[in-house]
């Protein structure tokens, strides 16, 4: 395997991905990601000098609209899906001391 994923990398990616992996999952993730990157490295065979990255197949332009409210107040409806709710607001665990 050409790509060796270190413990530090997996730890860092876990932070970016907001995932908490068990030790077993971390080992598996290191293997999976290494293999996948080996595979993706195949793209390096292609000379892409001067080729613009294509994020969208059609030319896209910004879509503008008048700044007018079109949707109604759906707060009550939306809150029925919330895992935690209090006084018409989302309730979350403590965020700072």
């Amino acid at each position, binding site marked *: 395997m050409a790509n060796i994923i270190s413990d530090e990398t997996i730890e860092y990616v876990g932070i*970016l*991905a*907001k995932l*908490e*992996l068990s030790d077993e999952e971390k080992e598996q993730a290191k293997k999976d990601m290494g293999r*996948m990157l080996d595979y993706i490295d195949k793209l390096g065979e292609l000379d892409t000098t001067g080729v613009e990255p294509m994020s969208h197949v*059609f030319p896209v332009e910004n879509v503008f609209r008048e700044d007018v409210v079109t949707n109604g107040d759906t707060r009550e409806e939306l809150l029925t899906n919330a*895992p935690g709710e209090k006084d018409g607001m989302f309730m979350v665990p*403590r965020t700072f001391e």
Partner: protein
Amino acid sequence: MDLAQMTAVELSAAIREKKVTVREAVEASLDAIAKREESLNCYVTVDREGALQRADEVQKKIDDGTLTGPLAGVPVAVKDNMCTKGMLTTCSSKILGNFVPTFTADAVIRLEEAGAVILGKTNMDEFAMGSTTETSAYGVTRNPWNEGHVPGGSSGGSAAAVAAGECFFALGSDTGGSIRQPASFCGVVGMKPTYGTVSRYGLIAYGSSLDQIGPLCKDVTDCAAILEIIAGHDPKDSTSMKRDDTDFTSALQEDVAGMKIGIPRDYFGEGLDPEVKASVLAAAELLKAKGAVVEEFDLSLVDYAIPAYYTIAAAEASSNLERFDGIKYGYRAEDCEELHKMYKKTRSQGFGAEVKRRIMLGSFVLSSGYYDAYYLKALRVKALIKKAFDDAFSRYDVILGPAAPTTAPELGKSLQDPIQMYLGDIYTISVNLAGLPGITVPCGVDSKGLPIGVQLIGDCFREKKLLRMAYTYEKARGPFGLDKEGR
């Protein structure tokens, strides 16, 4: 009258002619569900009461002349990644196990306005990440042709439900082949339209630059009729295209004389099952006999499509799936004292292994120091792939090839080796990268009794060429289906 034999368009005609009621049509689907669902597991949710109630409402509107279209009164199943107001929408994930949307996807609204009756929501790979419907948090779906095999994925529940008569047609979504491959594995017709043709509003995003909604159905006529209804510009999807050529049923003509078909040699090399190869090439011969000009050519870059796709799709997925954090909807891990711990625990417990694998890969390729080498590189390769297709379509009307290298694999054989599974997407994936339309039509059955599909790929906005060719092929091929193969 045997309703199970009818296509969606035939059924709605029979309803308009008062030979069948909408309630009878819905009951026919519900009976098929009662008979086979326990073993097949095509649905995550079946809304029996809602469908029957809606049947009566639609019947009234047909009777008073309000609804006259080709899908009025037809029972439909919707993939569980499209939001349906008031109806559970899980994406086959634990993290959305209790999510009841407060709005409905644009494509589904268009079906409702046309008088289709929603039966329920179909099973899929979790967040559409998979090729077998085995990554669902709600159990595997089985292939109606052989229950020891997978239905394909990620729209496996939709494909299996159509094949088994548990609905008259279904909606799926296709990010890398997720409509075309399961349609092929289940012996039904499936189409991914040109990117931007069907609104993505209300479709829970996986890879936003690749995702498209499309039909899974019994024949090409249904496919054109459904696409005509779900296509259309939507201001709520900023990538939605304004098209004035969405009268797709006008393309249902038996005429391919002089149309040029390109067969990419790169699609018929190593890894392709000999039975699939023979069947797909026989389909090309049939079109040739109908007057099409068939030519082999080198498409090039085929081996680079999968690594480019998984880089781009994983990157977009890692960003799109950040919204599942246990705050506004869905699952929340219990007993978390602090916000960041709650995010991490919720996501770790709520997502399955394949979803986590892709989020991790996506986070990595987007991270500082790797963004250029991986993500931008993949976008550059995407540009080269698009150009290869542009060159091909300067010479050919349609590209013809297989939908998948094999027929449906056995259950339980695909997930242990992810890269091997990804390789199965080789013929479908570049179509998404280039934004092209593609359709699969059943073209045979292998020695195991499993269906084979032929894929037709068109240039952007050339769905009509695909439909015309698929329609001509279907007429020449003759009847096909689970009930027509003597099973």
